[in-house]
């Protein structure tokens, strides 16, 4: 019996060692194909329709920190190239004068609705997300606003069901949806949306060693391409007829892993995800 247990343990150890050694050996960094943007979306922050003054203040803060803090935060998540705000962006709601901002100041608290996904909002510790681009940006924006208007607003994050975000805003359970929300005409009609703060493009990602081989859609005609099943990337691959063969993956991360292990030549995923994954490589 003792012998058997020793044997089993030895085996487990040997396998673990083999796997970890093999995994270390391969560090071929993927890269985003330069200048090939298949589709472009923009992320915005949403408030209840009519809360223009609140969104105006957020716009103002975003524009003011665009050149310093926003860069620092974006850099942390590999998203510097995706920033959509500049210090000369015009705040379209500058003239708003409703009482949504003053209400918030007197309440001393803003509730932000989020869902958990990296790199936007993740590592939830005791119901509070501790990491993520949107999480840190929201904190920075309200820090700026508190300083500028000598207010004392505390930021509270509330995890929501993504499909219920509009009703949550309407009902006042949350003041803002700040969670990689793509700006669409329908959302502009139904909610008050901030200036775009982040781009999310559908981009092609290839291995570094193939960067010169795959530069255009035309050059990818012999490639095996992949994307998340049912995603916007899949839509691009099919509508633009990219590659020789398409393989559907369970998630964007799985597609990325398949690229790294050379099962796929090209993947089409969100630029926010792509840049985050690449920034996580050693």
């Amino acid at each position, binding site marked *: 019996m003792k012998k058997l247990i020793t*044997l*089993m343990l030895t*085996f487990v150890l040997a396998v673990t060692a083999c*796997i970890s050694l*093999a*995994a270390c*050996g*391969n560090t071929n960094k993927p890269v985003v194909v330069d200048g090939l943007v298949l589709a472009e979306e923009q992320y915005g922050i949403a408030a209840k329709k009519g809360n223009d003054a609140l969104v105006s203040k957020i716009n103002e803060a975003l524009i003011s920190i665009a050149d310093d803090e926003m860069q620092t935060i974006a850099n942390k998540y590999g998203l510097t190239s995706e920033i959509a705000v500049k210090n000369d962006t015009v705040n379209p709601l500058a003239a708003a004068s409703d009482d949504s901002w003053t209400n918030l100041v007197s309440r001393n608290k803003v509730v932000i609705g989020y869902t958990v996904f990296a790199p936007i909002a993740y590592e939830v510790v005791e119901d509070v997300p501790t990491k993520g681009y949107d999480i840190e940006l929201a904190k920075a924006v309200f820090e700026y606003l508190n300083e500028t208007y000598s207010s004392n607003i505390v930021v509270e994050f509330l995890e929501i069901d993504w499909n219920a975000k509009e009703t949550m805003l309407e009902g006042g359970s949350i003041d803002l949806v700040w969670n990689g929300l793509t700006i669409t005409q329908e959302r502009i009609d139904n909610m008050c949306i901030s200036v775009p703060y982040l781009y999310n493009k559908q981009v092609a990602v290839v291995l570094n060693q193939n960067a010169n081989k795959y530069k255009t859609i035309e050059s990818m005609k012999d490639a*095996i391409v*992949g994307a998340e*099943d*049912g995603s916007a990337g899949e839509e691009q691959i099919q509508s633009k007829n990219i590659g020789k*063969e398409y*393989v*559907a*993956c*369970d998630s964007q991360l799985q597609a990325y892993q398949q690229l790294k*292990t*050379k*099962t*796929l*030549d090209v993947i089409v995923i969100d630029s926010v995800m792509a840049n985050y994954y690449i920034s996580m490589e050693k």
Partner: protein
Amino acid sequence: MDFIIILQNLLNGFGNTVLLFAITLIAALPLGLLIAFGSMSKFIPIKAFCRGLVWVIRGTPLLLQVLLVTLVPFYVFNIGNTEIISFLGIKMKTLLFSYACLAFIINYGCYFSEIIRGAIESVPKGQFEAGKVLGMTKGQIFRKVILFQVIKKSLAPASNEIITLVKDTALASIAGVIELYTSAEHLVNQFIVLTPLLYAAIFYLIFNGVLTLLFAYLEKKMSFYKE
């Protein structure tokens, strides 16, 4: 919602499910027999290898095994799957499907081996001895005396595994195989209704119903020899 479109898509997925099922079954039964012999071998290294293999395969999730098989060429031999398909001149879908088959064959081979081992070991030792006394060789004893009893004895437990196999084919989706369940999920995403999953359930149910009837028939056929 177009019923014909749903049926067509589900049938496409069902084709892959049946193919995966058939290939696994055909290859896993002989492999199971081989591993069963190995586990009973008197030569220690072979016995240890087979018992170890059964332990590892039964002790880890099939989902993980399917995924790992697709990664073996890269992590072990540092050859990308893209290189393999350009060398063999096949489609990536075919290669991934083969990987899924391989993982299923090994996994089910191990389960079958234990069923077969149990069946072989349950044959009374006296029958081996009687064969020897009659001057039969080991091969003759196995083919003429033992094999049929083994088939008969393993039929009921194996039918259990085989029915599980039908449903386990859904796990092949991790390797990019579009089988019945995945095609149903696609339809759910397309039409935003859950009914395709229900239709998929009916497909599985009918398939398993046919198998159940087949096994009942086989058991009846073999019941002429009562112990």
